C-alpha cells in the first residue's frame, strides 16, 4: 500500500522540531509499523537524507522500548505496542501522523526518541523488595494465595513503555506507579516496605514533574498490557494508609 507520513523531526534535545512529510509506497500489510519505518529509512538513506530516529529493541511487545504517537494515539489505533502494530490496521492511501511521546519529564532526544529515565528513578525510590542475594528462604516457605498471585502478576505485566503518560492530558505516571505498587503490594514479600514504597515513589513522581491523576482513564485505554485503572486506587489506598500512620 501507499501512505503519506508526517513525521516529527528534531535534530537534538535543544533543536527546534518540525513535521516533515514523506511518501512511501509498496508497504506490505504483514509488516509491523516499525518495519514500515525501516523501509522509509532505507528510502531516505538512498536519497541521502538522514534516517528517522526511533527506539525499539525486542520488536515483540515486551521490552517496552518502542513507542510513538500515531494519529494522536499512543502506540496507534490498536491496543498494543508500536512494534506489534501491523500495517493491516491501515488502508492504502492513509495519511499517518507520527510524533514522539509528549510529556515534560520525557524530553525529546532526537526525532521520535525520548528520555524516559524518570521511570527508573521512580523505581529507585522504592520499587523493589529489599532482599540481598543469598538471604532468601526456601521458595515454598511462604505460600501465596492464588488470587493475590494472579493480581500481582497482572500488575507486573507493565513494560514501562510510557504510553500511559503520553496519553494522559495531565502527563501523570500514576498507572505505571500503581502497577508496580500493586505488584509488590499484593505479595507477602512486599509487605514490610509497602507503606514506605508508596510514599517514596509518589514523592519521586511529583519531583520528576509528572502531573496529578484526575481519573480520566486515558492511560488504561492506551496501555498495551491492559493494566486496569484500579491499580491507581490501590496506590492511593497505600499512600493514605501510610499517611494515617497505619503502624
Amino acid at each position: 500500500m501507499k501512505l503519506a507520513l508526517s513525521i516529527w523531526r528534531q535534530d537534538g534535545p535543544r533543536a527546534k522540531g518540525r513535521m516533515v512529510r514523506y511518501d512511501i509506497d509498496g508497504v506490505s500489510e504483514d509488516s509491523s509499523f516499525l518495519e514500515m519505518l525501516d523501509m522509509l529509512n532505507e528510502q531516505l538513506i538512498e536519497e541521502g537524507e538522514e534516517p528517522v530516529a526511533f527506539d525499539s529493541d525486542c520488536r515483540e511487545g515486551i521490552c517496552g522500548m518502542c513507542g510513538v504517537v500515531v494519529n494522536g494515539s499512543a502506540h496507534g489505533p490498536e491496543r498494543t505496542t508500536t512494534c506489534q502494530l501491523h500495517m493491516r490496521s491501515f488502508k492504502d492511501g492513509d495519511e499517518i501522523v507520527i510524533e514522539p511521546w509528549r510529556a515534560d519529564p520525557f524530553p525529546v532526544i532526537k526525532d521520535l526518541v525520548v528520555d524516559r529515565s524518570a521511570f527508573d528513578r521512580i523505581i529507585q525510590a522504592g520499587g523493589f523488595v529489599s532482599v540481598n542475594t543469598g538471604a532468601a528462604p526456601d521458595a515454598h516457605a511462604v505460600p501465596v494465595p492464588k488470587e493475590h498471585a494472579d493480581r500481582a502478576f497482572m500488575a507486573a505485566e507493565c513494560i514501562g513503555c510510557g504510553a500511559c503518560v503520553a496519553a494522559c492530558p495531565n502527563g501523570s505516571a500514576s498507572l505505571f506507579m500503581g502497577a508496580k505498587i500493586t505488584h509488590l503490594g499484593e505479595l507477602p514479600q512486599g509487605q514490610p516496605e509497602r507503606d514506605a514504597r508508596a510514599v517514596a515513589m509518589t514523592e519521586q513522581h511529583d519531583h520528576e514533574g509528572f502531573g496529578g491523576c484526575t481519573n480520566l482513564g486515558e492511560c488504561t485505554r492506551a496501555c498495551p498490557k491492559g493494566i486496569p485503572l484500579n491499580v491507581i486506587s490501590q496506590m492511593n489506598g497505600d499512600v493514605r494508609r501510610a499517611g494515617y500512620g497505619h503502624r
Partner: protein
Amino acid sequence: MTDQLIDGLYREGEPIADTKAPDVPVPEMWTRRKFDAALVNPANRRKLDVIIVGTGLAGASAGATLGEAGYNVKSFCYQDSPRRAHSIAAQGGINAAKNYKDDGDSVYRLFYDTEKGGDYRSRETNTYRLAEVSAGIIDQCVAQGVPFAREYGGLLDNRSFGGVQVSRTFYARGQTGQQLLIGAYQALERQIAAGTVQMFARHEMLELVVVDGRARGIIARDLVSGEIETHMADAVVLASGGYGNVFYLSTNAMGSNVTAAWRAHRKGAYFANPCYTQIHPTCIPQSGEHQSKLTLMSESLRNDGRIWVPKNAEDCDKDPRQIPPEDRDYYLERIYPAFGNLVPRDIASRQAKNMCDEGRGVGPEVDGVRRGVYLDFAAAIERMGEEAVRAKYGNLFEMYEQITGDNPYQVPMRIYPAVHYTMGGLWVDYDLEASIPGLFVAGEANFSDHGANRLGASALMQGLADGYFVLPNTIRAYLAKGPFEKVAEDHPDVQDARRSVSDRVERFLSVGGTRSVDSYHKELGKIMWEKCGMERTDAGLREAIEQVRALRQDFWDNVRVLGTADGLNQSLEKAGRVADFLEMGELMCIDALHRRESCGGHFRAESQTEDGEALRHDDEFAYVAAWEWGGDGGTPVLHKEDLTFKAIELKQRSYK
C-alpha cells in the same frame, strides 16, 4: 604453535585447560572453590571498581550482588533502561533442581540432562555447578517478588520442557524472562539508589582496555551525546548476551550484537565454539522481505500441541482442517515415539526443515519453498477444553494472531525453526575468567555450560546462576589481589584504545558509499543461514568464507552512514555492530568447517548415521575449540581444550 596453515585458513596452537576447578570430586568442587577464594575485607571493597557491560539477567544480577557486597560498580547497557535487556523476551521458563514435584529430579539429574542435551560438548565442572546453584535462584527470585505461576494451594507450579521427563521448569505465564529481569533490575535499581552502582544507559562499549596483560577498563560511546568515554576499573565483566543476530533474522532483539565480546577477542580473549548456534523449532514463519526479526513461540507449546505435515505434498495448500487424520504425518511422534513432540530442539528443528525440503511444508512460499509445519491444538482443546488451553497459553495465542492474522483456536498454528541462541562465546575457566586476566564473562556471552545445544529453560538459569552466585564468589578471588595500581587515562594503552574507537567512528562516516548498513547485514544473514545454519557442508562453508570476505571488503568500500558522530546516530551504531558481525561470521564458518562431526546445534551433512541422525566423533572432537585472534589480515589460531568426564559417562545421544 605449528607454522602449518590448515586448510589455508587457520593454525593450531598449544592446547589449553581450565586450571581453576579444584582437584576434588566434581560434586565437592564448588564448595571447595568458594572456600578457597580469598575474601575481601568490606572496607576494601568500596575501593575496588568493577565494570559490568550488560544488564540482562547475567549483568543485572551480578551488578546487584556486587553492589550489595559493597564494591564500586559501573554498569552499562545500550538501551535506554537496564530493564530492557533482551533477557526480557524469554517466554518459557527457568529450570531448577527443586524436585517440588517429587518426580525424581535432583542436582545430578539436572546436570545429566544438561550435559546430554548439549551432546557432551560442555564442560562438566561448570555444568554441575549450574545445577547445584539452580535451586537458590528460585528462592532469590521469589523473595524479590517475582510472580511465578502458583497452584491453588499457594505453592509454586512447574511444567516440563523439551528434552526432559521431569517437571522442573518454573514459569510466569509466557513472560518468565520479563519477570525475572524485572526482579534483577529492581535489585539493581536499589543499589543505584544506595550509591554502590552507577548506571550508564544508552552507552555502548566499543573497546576493551588491556594494560600489562590485564583488563583494566573499557572505551564506551555515550549514544546520546556521541562522546567517547574512558572508564577504568580493577576488573571488567562482560554480560553482553549472544551473537545470534549475525544471521540478521533471528529471535534476538534488534540491538543484540557481538561487539563487546568481539572487541575483547581482538584484544586476546579466546572465542570458544563459535559455530554452535541453536535453532529454535517453534517460531512464526517468515512472511516476506520486509521482515526485521522472527518471533519465537514458547517451546512450552510443544507440551500440548501436536506437530504434523500432510502425508501427501498435494495436500499442502489445502485448509488443514479439511485434511483427515489418516492423511497427516505426525512425524515426531512417528520417528521418536519415546519423546514425541518433546524431542530436543535441534532434532525438532532439523526434522521440520527435512519435511519442508521434501516438499511437504505448509504456508506461504518464500523463495520457492513452503517453510512451515503445523502445530495443532485441536486435540488439546478437545481434551482440556478451550478455557484450559486459554489459561495456559492464551497470551501466546494472542501474539500469534496479532502477527499472522490467524486464530490458532480455529486453525493450527504454523511454525518454522529460527536462530535463537548461541552456545559459543568467550572462553572462560571455572571462575568465569577469560584468557585475559581480570576479564570475566557471564551469561550467554560465555561458552561453558551448554555444549553444542542448549536445553529449554536453561539459559535463564545460567544467566542468573552466573550473576547471583558464581561470579560474585569467583571475582573476589581476583579482586583480593587488588586494588591494582591505578592506570592514568593518558597511559599509552588507554590512548590507543580510545584512538582506535574514534578512528573507526570517523571511518564509518567517511566511506560515503551507496549501500545502507542494513543491506549488508541482510546479505550476511542470508549467507550464514544458508551455509552455516541448520545444516553445514564442507563445500558450503568454504563458499561462505569467500562470500563473507568479499562482503566485508565491499562494506568498507561502499557503506553509506549519514549524519554525524556528535549525537544520537542509529546508523552509526548499526555500522559498528555489522562490521564486527562481518568478522565474526568468518570465524563461525571456519569453526564449523574444522569440526567434521555433527553434534547438537552443529549438523555436518557429511557426518550422519544411515537414518539421517547426527553422528558425533568423540574420539576426534571431544574438545572445546578456543580461537585466538590472529591479527588483522592474519589467520586465527585454534587452541583445543580436551573435555574430560568424571561425573558422567559419555554416551551417544538417543531420543528414540
